[in-house]
């Protein structure tokens, strides 16, 4: 960190460093008005019975009671839990396995990486629409397998309420695992080559070295990746809109979509605020322990 407080001997506290202060006005406004103020505003209004317009008539926890009694919200939360858990497990596992493969001093590494990472450049809308087409039961994968002779083959996740969330998961993994692979590969490359040599000298098989030596050493990378994936999961919205629009029925609804629909379509702001506050709490549950674990206690790095 290069910056020190400069020119500390000069008079007039407020005018000192004036240009820097003026230049920071957008940042200060964003931080204080939008991020801090906006969040507080939403939380406060989640305790009101605002409908079409925000109104300050408090009704206590009414909105939350209604929220947790709504089948659509419960379905959203359940979907998010399934999707979140599986997408964490699979993206970490697949990402790490791919990174380990890429770390075998292979040729064409750049080509493979380019291929695995390109879906990440695409938007969730594009991803969702492509997979909607691939999973189309009439023309997609299901029909191709059937035309090969396996006529009872059934794979139509987007039209089956019980498994629709897995159809979304497939698309999400296709889009996001390349990034996890890149992060993991960066972690693997950060590990001292001598560790590998020592393990080889001791005759430890490669998979054991990975499981008992390398993965514990990569704890930091794993946690960072975990936080990145997790905070992305909570926000999942576009993908669902593009792939299923929440259907069939309400089978693939997610919290972020609940918030949007109640705020901008159902004209029920109070519900939207309450739901978005729940999203905020979820993120806090993920972020706060992580921040505490990594940087908590004293300000070691300050």
């Amino acid at each position: 960190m290069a910056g020190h407080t400069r020119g500390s001997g000069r008079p007039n506290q407020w005018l000192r460093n004036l240009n820097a202060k003026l230049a920071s006005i957008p940042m200060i406004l964003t931080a204080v008005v939008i991020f801090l103020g906006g969040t507080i505003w939403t939380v406060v209004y989640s305790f009101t019975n605002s409908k079409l317009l925000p109104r300050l008539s408090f009704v206590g926890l009414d909105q939350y009671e209604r929220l947790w009694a709504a089948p659509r919200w419960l379905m959203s939360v359940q979907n998010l839990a399934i999707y979140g858990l599986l997408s964490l497990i699979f993206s970490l596992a697949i990402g790490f396995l791919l990174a380990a493969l890429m770390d075998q001093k292979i040729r064409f590494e750049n080509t493979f990486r380019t291929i695995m990472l390109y879906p990440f450049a695409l938007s969730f809308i594009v991803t969702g629409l492509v997979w909607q087409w691939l999973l189309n039961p009439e023309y997609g994968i299901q029909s191709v397998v059937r035309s090969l002779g396996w006529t009872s083959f059934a794979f139509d996740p987007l039209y089956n309420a019980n498994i629709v969330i897995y159809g979304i998961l497939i698309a999400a993994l296709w889009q996001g695992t390349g990034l996890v692979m890149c992060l993991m590969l960066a972690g693997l490359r950060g590990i001292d080559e001598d560790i590998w040599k020592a393990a080889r000298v001791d005759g430890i098989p490669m998979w054991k070295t990975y499981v008992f030596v390398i993965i514990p050493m990569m704890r930091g990378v794993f946690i960072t990746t975990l936080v990145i994936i997790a905070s992305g999961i909570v926000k999942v919205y576009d993908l669902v809109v593009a792939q299923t629009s929440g259907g069939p029925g309400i089978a693939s609804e997610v919290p972020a979509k609940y918030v949007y629909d109640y705020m901008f379509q159902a004209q029920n702001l109070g519900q939207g605020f309450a739901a978005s506050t729940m999203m905020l709490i979820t993120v806090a549950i993920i972020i706060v322990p992580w921040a505490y674990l990594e940087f908590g206690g004293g300000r070691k790095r300050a």
Partner: protein
Amino acid sequence: MPEIAAFNAIAAGIEPEAEKVQARATLAGPRGRKPRRALSGRNIMVYGTLIVVALYYLLPLYVMVMTSLKGMPEIRLGNIFAPPLEITFEPWVKAWSSACTGLNCDGLSRGFWNSVRITVPSTLVSIAIASINGYALANWRFKGADLFFTILIVGAFIPYQVMIYPIVIVLREIGLYGSLTGLIIVHTIFGMPILTLLFRNYFAGLPEELFKAARVDGAGFWTIYFRIMLPMSMPIFVVAMILQVTGIWNDFLFGVVFTRPEYYPMTVQLNNIVNSVQGVKEYNVNMAATILTGAVPLFVYFVSGRLFVRGIAAGAVKG
């Protein structure tokens, strides 16, 4: 700052890859065990798996292109993996110039130009503001600056849904709700945490002597920024540009919340074209439209290569 550490770790890990690989290769040189045959069992497994995985990743792109080049009768009869018997570019023409969303039938071109009109100014404004912020934070710290910066970074983790409505109200009050300017402001706001972090770290890493020498020579805040920092920092500006262009082009939520239908960006219009319920579904037109929307970020990705990896490693922190 948690994210800074994370970012640094990621960036540090990704950058010197090439050298490390080389270092390994030289170390492994003649002293290692005897060279393996090219077709060892291990190699077959490693390359076999990687090739299968690569095919899996490429499959959707392949299907998109193939579907977009077929006519509808062929799609109804054939299978999606088969290459077209008769190549037609009609779906592309239709997707670009006459596909319908609701009553409008002027194709995706409108969304494309809207996206251009959103992405270009948003990228420029957000980078200008964030780079100056980062510069002030790195070189001209004032009392309280770190507090605001911490709020900004923590704010990057707050779900957008929590802050959307207050922003709608603010924009409505100043009369910009629904306009392109309003959306540009929103992109600038939400791009600020990650970009400020990026620039702050970069400027803080430049030799301090430069800054001091310029100060001794009498240069002020803006002179140092424009004459010294800006010319020295082109790589990080390119990284920030990649990050913003792809991020803003791919945005859907802000586009749908903060603009009127005539200003809808390409992603929103694409979704409306493909997922509209009325009419016969034209899968070839849909796929052509999808490729057209994905083309800009894909182009940025393939052209920028390694810089893109750096950009998303930084952007991933955004979550």
